[in-house]
């Protein structure tokens, strides 16, 4: 009943004012009594009916006063017919206060645009489902080479065959970017922006993609000479042109959307094809899987070599994981999403703060506007306009402003999104479709709607509190002037505070990024490239002899590769071994216990890798103790290097060099100690490493140091040709530059720093408007006081200084509170920070040195208005 009373009193507001004053107490009593008569659900129904009834009859109730001057022609009802009139009035009012209108629309529009852009990015990176039908049933399958090597061969064979035969999987396919088809450094590659991918023909069925024109790839397109049964077919397949698919975008940009080229050989400059590829078809617009590809080259479907799978109906990912232990199975969505993306949640919070800043700003602008319109409202009320009518007009103005802002936001959002995406590291945005769409438009619309509410409620609140007479005299909030000034100052403090928090967070992220980039990797990635070697593939099926032969051939290929590459011109040195920093997510994090003496507890757990003896020198590690064993020593004993981190732990029990240690149940003698280097991520502490020395390491990677200058650049192509000769059936010829890996490793930090800085910078103009607005309002309010001080001889500059000082006190308190808030936020952010404490002097310094001068300048410029006050005129005003 209490709630009903409040609601009913609100509903009665819709009644004409004087009718309400006469009857509202009685009506309220009566309605309440009638609600009390009922019980339970009937009471609620009765209450709802009474409320609706009160609202429904409102337009029909007579008003004893007639609305004069600004009123719609007779016959218009309050709800329907008067709207065009209100619209006309709103347009007129808004165009009269052009500067203010533009300021409000720009502020709101910019804020909504930024929000839309950032929301698009978060939405695209985190929330939007993959654009494939039934995408939740598609999984990524990974059998990491390290686990393969760690397991006994029989088990690997078993797992591989199970992977190929399990009924839990309905469809299998493979897809990988294939830069090997690109001519290194060719200008055409850059101009055409070709991004080839090697995919198995089954991929498109698995993803549920239909061609936009032409046809998809077939198993026949992918078959090579080895699949052909007869000699004649083999010859034919060698001379057949490759069949490819291209993206809609490429088709439009470079072939003008010509349907005639489908089914014919086309020319793609910069692509290394032996003969012109035949265009089979064009894929639908926006499809760029995997990793932003725009050319798809077929590779064979193989049951034992695939990385994508569609679960069979009824099968779950847990079942598949349980059936295939050791094989990494992740939903495709998680696999494609950047690993650090969920850390972007912090940024989502930051954008929330940005909205808040914008709305505080808008509220402040409106406050100033309502103050300026007090007289107008007062006159209209005195002439008999109902408060409802005035509120409606504010609502109409709000709708117009919000509509214009939304339009502006929608025009700007794509550009801002594109800029933000361009600023983000490629690893974060790769393969994601990030663009504003209906969802983000809806988001922007919702934000604008909130704006309309603010735009309407603020003036209504002011009308509610004041009488027409006071309003006509230009006095807002009788006896509440102090309160108004205080509210205004509070708004400014809040705004500066939020801006400071955002800038502080940006400072922390930037600091973390610079610290991560400055981490000593322990080696110079500059001239180093890594070449992933093929994993030893196990023949499934076939006789024992076949298998042995295949293994033997692969061993030979491994043995040939290293000397062949070392001999190339432009190659300074090459070794086999772990590739530091490489695709950390795909490497097994397996560590093994290191035992110094038998029957003693392990002293450390370390990563273990097979390397060739010159690996430390190729990587540029210093051998601080011991030496590289000679080939004869190597053949007689098992030797290993340990890094300094492990050596320190071993040193407790005597000299390290020459010590026998047991790792993973195998004994080896420590040949020497090498300097520490970053194994996986620069933001993790250095961990113990054991480098097992072997003459013929079959490691997953070959590490090559290139000669400086042009010779080195050319060597990359030579390496490819050489590997091509040794491994004719190799799937991947990816060559990784370690400097690129170092960049990737810091990508998350970079994207966070970039986005937060962007948000912080966007807050700055809002803060400037805030300071300016607050000061202008203060001057307006204290016109009389200023006029008197000027009249009695105060120099305008002194008055200005006093005003600026007062504004800066507000800015200063906002800064202090904001910095404290930033430090608190920093505690929450600590997981995303690197070697930066929550209270970081650099971040505090940046926040203060950026915000304070800007606020000073804004305040000083805004205080110019003091000079325009004519004491004679100002004092004569009522």
């Amino acid at each position, binding site marked *: 009943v209490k709630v009903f009373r409040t609601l009913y009193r609100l509903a009665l507001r819709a009644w004409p004012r004087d*009718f309400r004053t006469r*009857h509202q*107490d*009685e*009506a309220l*009593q*009566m*309605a309440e*009594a*009638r609600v009390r008569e009922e019980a339970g659900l009937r009471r609620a129904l009765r209450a709802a*009916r*009474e409320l*609706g*009834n*009160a*609202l*429904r*009859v*409102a337009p*029909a*109730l*007579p008003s004893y006063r007639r609305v004069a001057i600004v009123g719609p022609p007779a016959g218009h009802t309050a709800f329907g017919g008067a709207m065009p009139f209100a619209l006309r009035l709103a347009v007129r009012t808004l165009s009269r206060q052009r500067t203010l209108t533009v300021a409000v629309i720009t502020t709101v529009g910019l804020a909504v645009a930024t929000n839309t852009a950032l929301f698009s990015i978060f939405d695209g990176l985190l929330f939007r489902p993959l654009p494939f039908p039934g995408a939740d049933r598609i999984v990524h399958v990974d059998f990491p080479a390290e686990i393969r090597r760690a397991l006994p061969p029989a088990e690997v064979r078993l797992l591989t065959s199970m992977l190929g035969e399990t009924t839990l999987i309905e469809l299998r396919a493979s897809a990988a970017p294939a830069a090997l088809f690109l001519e290194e450094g060719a200008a055409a590659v850059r101009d055409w922006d070709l991004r080839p991918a090697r995919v198995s023909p089954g991929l498109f069925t698995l993803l549920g993609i239909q061609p936009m024109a032409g046809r998809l790839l077939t198993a026949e397109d992918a078959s090579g000479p080895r699949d052909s049964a007869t000699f004649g077919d083999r010859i034919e397949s060698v001379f057949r042109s490759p069949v490819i698919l291209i993206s809609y975008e490429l088709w439009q940009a470079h072939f003008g959307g010509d349907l005639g080229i489908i089914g014919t050989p086309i020319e793609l400059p910069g692509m290394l094809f032996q003969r012109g590829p035949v265009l089979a078809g064009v894929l639908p617009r926006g499809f760029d899987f995997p990793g932003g590809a725009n050319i798809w080259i077929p590779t064979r479907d193989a049951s034992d070599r695939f990385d994508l799978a569609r679960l069979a109906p009824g099968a779950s990912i847990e079942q598949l994981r349980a059936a295939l232990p050791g094989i990494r199975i992740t939903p495709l969505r998680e696999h494609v999403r950047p690993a650090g993306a969920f850390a972007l949640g912090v940024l989502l919070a930051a954008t929330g703060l940005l909205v808040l800043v914008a709305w505080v700003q808008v509220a402040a602008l409106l406050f100033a506007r309502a103050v300026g319109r007090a007289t107008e409202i007062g006159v209209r009320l005195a002439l008999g306009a109902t408060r409802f009518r005035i509120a409606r007009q504010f609502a109409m103005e709000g709708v117009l402003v919000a509509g214009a802002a939304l339009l502006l936001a929608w025009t700007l959002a794509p550009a801002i999104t594109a800029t933000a995406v361009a600023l983000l590291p490629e690893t974060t945005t790769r393969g994601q479709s990030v663009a504003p769409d209906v969802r983000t438009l809806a988001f922007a619309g919702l934000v604008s709607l909130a704006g309309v509410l603010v735009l309407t409620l603020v003036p209504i609140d002011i009308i509610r509190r004041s009488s027409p007479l006071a309003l006509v005299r230009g006095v807002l909030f009788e006896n509440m002037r102090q309160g108004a000034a205080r509210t205004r100052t509070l708004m400014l403090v809040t705004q500066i505070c939020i801006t400071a928090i955002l800038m502080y967070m940006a400072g922390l992220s930037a600091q973390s990024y610079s610290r991560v980039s400055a981490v000593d990797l322990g080696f110079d990635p500059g001239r180093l490239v890594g070449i992933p070697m093929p994993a030893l593939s196990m023949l499934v099926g076939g006789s024992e002899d076949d298998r042995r032969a295949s293994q033997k051939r692969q061993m030979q290929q491994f043995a040939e590769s290293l000397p062949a590459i070392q001999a190339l011109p432009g190659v300074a040195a090459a070794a086999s071994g772990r590739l530091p920093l490489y695709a950390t997510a795909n490497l097994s994090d397996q560590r093994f216990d290191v035992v110094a003496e038998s029957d003693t507890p392990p002293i450390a757990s370390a990563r273990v890798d097979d390397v060739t003896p010159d690996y430390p020198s190729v990587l540029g590690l210093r051998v601080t103790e011991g030496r590289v064993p000679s080939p004869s020593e190597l053949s007689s004993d098992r030797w290993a290097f340990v890094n300094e981190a492990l050596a320190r732990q071993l040193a407790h029990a005597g000299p390290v060099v020459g010590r026998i240690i047991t790792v993973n149940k195998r004994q080896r003698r420590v040949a020497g100690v090498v300097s520490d280097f970053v194994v996986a991520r620069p933001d993790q502490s250095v961990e113990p490493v054991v480098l097992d020395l072997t003459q013929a390491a079959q490691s997953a990677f070959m590490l090559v140091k290139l000669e400086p200058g042009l010779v080195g650049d050319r060597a990359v192509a030579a390496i490819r040709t050489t590997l091509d000769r040794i491994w004719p059936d190799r799937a991947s010829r990816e060559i990784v530059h370690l400097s690129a890996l170092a960049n990737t490793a810091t990508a998350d930090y970079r994207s966070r720093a970039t986005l937060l800085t962007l948000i912080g910078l966007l807050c700055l103009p809002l803060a400037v408007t805030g300071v300016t607005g607050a000061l202008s309002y203060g001057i307006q309010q204290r016109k009389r006081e200023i006029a008197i001080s000027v009249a009695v001889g105060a120099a305008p500059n002194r008055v200005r200084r006093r005003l600026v000082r007062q504004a800066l006190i507000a800015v200063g308190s906002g800064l202090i509170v904001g910095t404290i808030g930033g430090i608190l936020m920093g505690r929450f952010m600590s997981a995303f920070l690197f070697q930066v404490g929550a209270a970081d002097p650099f971040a505090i310094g940046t926040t203060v040195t950026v915000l304070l001068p800007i606020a000073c300048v804004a305040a000083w410029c805004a205080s110019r208005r003091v000079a325009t006050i004519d004491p004679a005129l100002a004092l004569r005003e009522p």
Partner: protein
Amino acid sequence: VPSPHDLLPLTHLMYAVLLLLAEKTDHPYELVRRVRERSGGLIDPGTGSFYSVLARAQQQGMIRESSAQADTRRRVYEITPLGRRALAAEAARLASQVKAAHAVLTPGKKRT
């Protein structure tokens, strides 16, 4: 002086209110209660609707606030001579309507 015929036809609720006020002067809450009671719950106006009818009747001069008010917090309404004439006219109109209906519905005169 407005003619009572200009005010016809009266709404259901207006007719009921005038009828009750013709019986005796009363205040709104009691009026609503009586309206409901008399109609056997068939006419059960919302508070808002009821005030809307009161306001219209008052504006048209069919009722007025009684000058003899015992309680200042409760407004008591009485019917005016115009209201009484309008009520009579409405009753007559309704009676003729009822007669017309009878003429049609009586079985002897029903067309086949």
